[in-house]
């Protein structure tokens, strides 16, 4: 369109076309982008306002509470204490143990999920027959409520009802960790594979063909062509799962209740807020967990140096 605006008579068609096509097209896109951005903001505003109301308010209130000694059991002692709750938490060995445990559970389970999830995504992507059945079968665990899958695995390893392992794995340190991570991996790998499947589908088939013609093996095509081209999808999958895994609560609560150093940050928050009704201390734990989550998101987005837009095919 831009090129047609340039009359062929003035100067060479090639040069003029190139020139006006560049600048004219650029201006045109800027206008369009501006309008789109405006429309986008308008369309997103209601959702953003609702989100702010239901998330920003509780977060702000938690931040406020975290600056008080606020214990429902001893109401006469409630008072403003500044950052005392934070100091208390950050000097506690129980807290750092929970940070370590949560990190270990997150890293190990997300790493396993990435490998398994990618394998399952390839199966779903390449399945020639029974495509729908394969996808449904793989996604079933993700449809099961976490508490139920946690109980299912707890019963599966229990000495009286169980059929996995000898004795009582949940009665030992290594066993407790293994069962928790196994449950997490079983439950959330489908989510990971679904996100990766979307990434796989976005890789251009012609690239695969070209690599094949050049004589690349299947492994080479996977690592040199497929994976680099779905970097964005992998980032999104890892980010979503890491944020989720870091807030792990149900599985640990059901299976070990925090025994054998498996207590997580969410578990400490639950103990403080729900069991001990110490709202000040509990809110401070929640705020710190929130900060950790932001940190993880920041590291992922900066560390991968990937434009999240690539996932949408705009990059």
């Amino acid at each position, binding site marked *: 369109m831009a090129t047609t605006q340039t009359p062929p008579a003035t100067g060479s068609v090639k040069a003029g076309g190139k020139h006006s096509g560049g600048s004219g097209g650029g201006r045109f896109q800027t206008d369009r982008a501006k309008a789109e951005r405006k429309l986008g903001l308008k369309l997103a505003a209601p959702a953003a306002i609702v989100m702010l109301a239901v998330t920003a308010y509780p977060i702000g209130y938690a931040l406020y509470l975290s600056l008080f000694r606020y*214990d*429902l*059991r*001893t*109401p006469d002692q409630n008072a403003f204490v500044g950052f005392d709750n934070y100091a*208390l*938490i950050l000097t*506690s060995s*129980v*807290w750092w143990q*929970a940070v370590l445990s949560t990190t270990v559970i997150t890293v190990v389970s997300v790493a396993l999920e990435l490998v398994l999830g990618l394998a399952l995504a390839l199966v779903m992507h390449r399945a020639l027959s029974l495509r729908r059945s394969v996808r449904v079968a793989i996604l079933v665990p993700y449809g099961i409520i976490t508490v139920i899958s946690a109980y299912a695995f707890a019963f599966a390893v229990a*000495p*009286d009802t169980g059929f996995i392992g000898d*004795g*009582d794995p*949940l*009665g*030992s*340190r290594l066993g*407790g960790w293994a069962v928790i991570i196994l449950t997490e991996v079983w439950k959330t790998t489908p989510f990971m594979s679904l996100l990766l499947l979307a990434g796989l589908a976005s890789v251009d088939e012609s690239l695969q063909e070209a690599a094949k013609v050049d004589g690349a093996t299947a492994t080479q095509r996977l690592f040199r062509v497929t994976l680099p081209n779905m970097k964005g999808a992998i980032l999104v999958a890892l980010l979503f799962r890491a944020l989720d895994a870091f807030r792990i609560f149900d599985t640990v609560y059901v299976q*070990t*209740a*925090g*025994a*054998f150093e498996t207590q997580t940050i969410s578990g*400490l928050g639950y*103990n*403080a807020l*729900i*069991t*001990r*009704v*110490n709202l000040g*201390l509990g809110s401070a*734990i929640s705020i710190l967990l929130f900060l950790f989550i932001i940190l993880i998101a920041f590291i992922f987005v900066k560390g991968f140096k990937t434009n999240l837009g690539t996932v949408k095919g705009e990059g």
Partner: protein
Amino acid sequence: MRRRTGLLAAALMVAPLAACGGGSDDAGGTPVVNWYIGNEGWLDPVIEACNAEAGGAYEIRAESLPTNPDGQREQLVRRLAAEDDSIDLIGMDVVWTGEFAQAGWISPFEPGELTNVGTEEQVLAGPWASAQYDGQQYGAPLNSNTRLLWYRESRLGDRPVPATWDELFATAEDLGSTIQETGARAESLVVLFNALVESAGTSIVTVDDDGEAQVALEEGPTLKALEIMKRLGEAPVAPAGQGNLGEDDNRLAFQAEDAASSLMINWPFVYPSVVEADPELAKDYRAAPFPAVEPGLPARAALGGYNLGIGRYTQDREAAVAAVNCLTAPEQQRTIATTGGQPSVLRELGEDPAILESLPFLPIMTAQLEEAAPRPVTPNYNDVSLAVRTVLHPLSDIDDPQQTYDELKDLLERALDSQAVL
């Protein structure tokens, strides 16, 4: 127009809420006493008896809570903190009394208000102590419980029944038997630790003259208690998977035909259970008092059971107190003991023939309940309990009792002021 529909909508939303709240007289003029309590087998007969006896003066309605005490407490605490006025009567685990009293969620009983459980003479010493806080009676003891040493008579043979922990360990090794004692990271671990500490001659928490709670745990006696816990976690007496064993796991393990264990510390519910499952095996079950830490020092066993509390925000305190007086009467106590397998709190029923029939070990329990050690009566009991669980679990990790002692004391001191991350 818009405003009117808004009002209508608001009214529609409020109407059902109003119906749920209050709830003091929607049974045709009869005041309703809402009783929040765990789902116990003896609830229905006891409530029916009292409602019949009241003859319209009040009607008790059970609001069933989860079976697990931690779950019961969480639901109650949330409602009480929100000043729920539909809670008239509360079935409190003995350890909650101090917490609920300090928080102002229950109101104390006036002297003379309670006809059956209002004086020290009427109630066994252990349950009595658990119902007092800050010089006032906040709980009406309803039933009691204590843990005993259980053994298989045929396997023990002519060996003497162990009376101390040293003897118990020696007998276990001689028999090649494990000692089935709970090791899970749960309240049962605190029950064990408290009983051992009290039997050794000290307490977890003491209250000074100003009413300030402080961590006591004298070093010498506490180390003795920790030494016993360490030995419980070691071979050959530690059962497999001890770190996840609860009371019911132990009951099942002990009840198995080829049980690897001939010795168990547990609540008396194990007896009605074996009578039902295997009456022949039940004849081989014997109970002995909870072992002493040292010969000469009295064993102070665990204390369990319910105290009844009156909700602070109740709209009909009078009806609730009348209900308490009926529920704690000897007839109801007898029903609870015979159907629930838990001893009464009343001195006068200490050797009651009807109860004795279903609980043959009643005299041992009654004697033990006179000496029993309540767990710390403090508003921050839950913090204390979590701190003990955090440090002492699993038993097999206690290497150096001195180091465990230092760690525990440090964490408990912060926990007692609600200033610990747990």
